[in-house]
């Protein structure tokens, strides 16, 4: 009869994809673990350190900008009804589908040399491709908050502002931070748009490419491993805090 065959085949197909996703990352890390010397010397390379710094600083600024600009947009999308709301929601998601090199061309076409090869350019490219994570996270959370909490606060004497700052925002903060961390991770993963807009100041994700092209695979690997460990630890911390947060409810 083979009535468990569906489960078995699905588990097999699903496992294939899982292995495909995890194998490259782990094998790269494990390979590097066998060569701690080069990892250590990479960590002493001032070019690498400065590139990592550039990556972290620009991604962090991007995440903060995404909060300042994205949370209000998420609130409007969650709470207000207006004509063209679907269109606006569509526009928020557009950056996900634009080829990264095209993002760079479009930004450069629009803002020209003011963003060419400077920090502003890095942040501009990162914000474009990553802001939607924060907007969508904030929107989903705002939409899930019982509006009656806000109504009660209003009847108890709080203005719209006080209601937002004392009730809505504190309740949404964990979700907004999760979204911002996704924005951070997406920002630090960007390469294609940076190649066009801001090859310099050099970020770590560009440096990986640089080393690969100049010195080959094994030279680029230590930087790649450092970068992936950083991204993964942020990601794991995010998952963990999310899981804890949902337990607390």
């Amino acid at each position, binding site marked *: 009869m083979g009535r468990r065959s569906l489960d078995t085949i699905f588990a097999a197909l699903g496992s294939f994809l899982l292995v495909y996703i995890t194998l490259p990352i782990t094998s790269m890390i494990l390979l590097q673990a066998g060569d701690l010397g080069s990892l250590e010397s990479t960590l002493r390379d001032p070019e690498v350190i400065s590139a990592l710094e550039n990556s972290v600083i620009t991604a962090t600024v991007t995440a903060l900008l995404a909060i300042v600009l994205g949370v209000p947009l998420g609130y409007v999308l969650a709470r207000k009804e207006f004509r063209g709301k679907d269109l606006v929601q569509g526009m928020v998601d557009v950056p996900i589908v634009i080829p990264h090199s095209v993002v760079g061309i479009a930004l450069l076409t629009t803002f020209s040399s003011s963003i060419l090869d400077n920090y502003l350019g890095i942040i501009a490219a990162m914000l474009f491709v990553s802001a939607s994570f924060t907007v969508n996270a904030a929107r989903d959370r705002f939409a899930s908050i019982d509006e009656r909490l806000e109504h*009660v*606060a*209003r*009847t108890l*004497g709080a203005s719209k502002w006080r209601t937002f700052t*004392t009730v809505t925002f504190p309740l949404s903060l964990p979700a907004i931070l999760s979204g911002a961390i996704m924005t951070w991770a997406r920002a630090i993963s960007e390469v294609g748009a940076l190649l066009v807009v801001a090859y310099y100041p050099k970020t770590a994700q560009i440096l990986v490419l640089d080393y690969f092209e100049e010195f080959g695979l094994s030279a680029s690997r230590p930087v790649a491993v450092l970068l992936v460990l950083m991204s993964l630890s942020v990601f794991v911390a995010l998952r963990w805090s999310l899981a804890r947060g949902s337990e607390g409810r």
Partner: protein
Amino acid sequence: MLEVQRVGKRWKEFELRDVSFRIERREYFVLVGPSGAGKTLLLEIIAGIRRPDEGRIVIGGKDVTDLPPEERGVSYVPQSYALFPHMSVLDNITYGLRIRGMSRSEAEKKATGLVRTLGIEHLLNRKPHCISAGEQQRVALARALVVEPILILLDEPFANLDMRIKSRLMSEMKRWREELGFTALHVTHSFEEVMVLGDKLGVLLHGRLRRWGKIGDVISDPGDEDVAKFLGYENVLEGMAEDGCLRVGELNVILPFTVSGKVRVCFRPEDVLLSVERIDSSARNQFKGRITEMEDLGPLFRITVDLDNDIVVRSYVTKASVLEMGLREGSKVYVSIKASSLKVF
């Protein structure tokens, strides 16, 4: 205190039309209606959360129709209470005071008496999701009352509670109400809550306030058939109870339980037995009266009997019995009510 003047509003699938009523100071007004009648929408309009399409809301003599909720002095307790999940019980209760600029310690001092009256001293440091539904209800009530509102709006405050807790909390609500003397508009679909708590009763059906007034008045004269059907209990007596007896005017009604004080007693028309002669049976309450109205409901007659002192009792009697006993308007009859079929509130 509160005047609702010809309020109309369409919102989602709900619609209110031409709703007008008044609540006086310290009155407890219960608005009943089936789900979907627009009860919550009406509360939200009074609280200022939604604007009416037409009509005015006047609170304490002031037209507040254009004021935002925070300037109306009306507290709102939504169904399921909407306690702030990120604040402790104490912070929930003092929220309204602190938002008005009162210091934390001052606010906590001010809340002390109310917290004691409501019996929630032991919960103050807990988070709302760690207390029971009955406790949540009391905390929500404290949060709403501590700001000394002109009026408190209660949306189905007993709907989330299971039967046993519900009846206990209802009688406590009655006590708090007497002790604290607040003015309340309470919406519900449960007739029991009307009987236990209400001074006045309004009946909202399909977005229209079909009838409102003193409870006894509304029940004994529902105005139209829909309201009468919705109310169900057609016989209500009100009086002072003592030693298992209820004095209503000059009548003595024997009760199935020992209660005392001012109570209401309800019973269904099908529990009222009519007879031409005095009968000797297990029905303890037997009164003389005169038939004033006979209504043909098909297989049954709905017969209205006037006892002494304007007390009116309705009975359902089968056609065959009516013929056999020769009942007609003006007939003198004995009315028997089994004490065990009385519902006491």
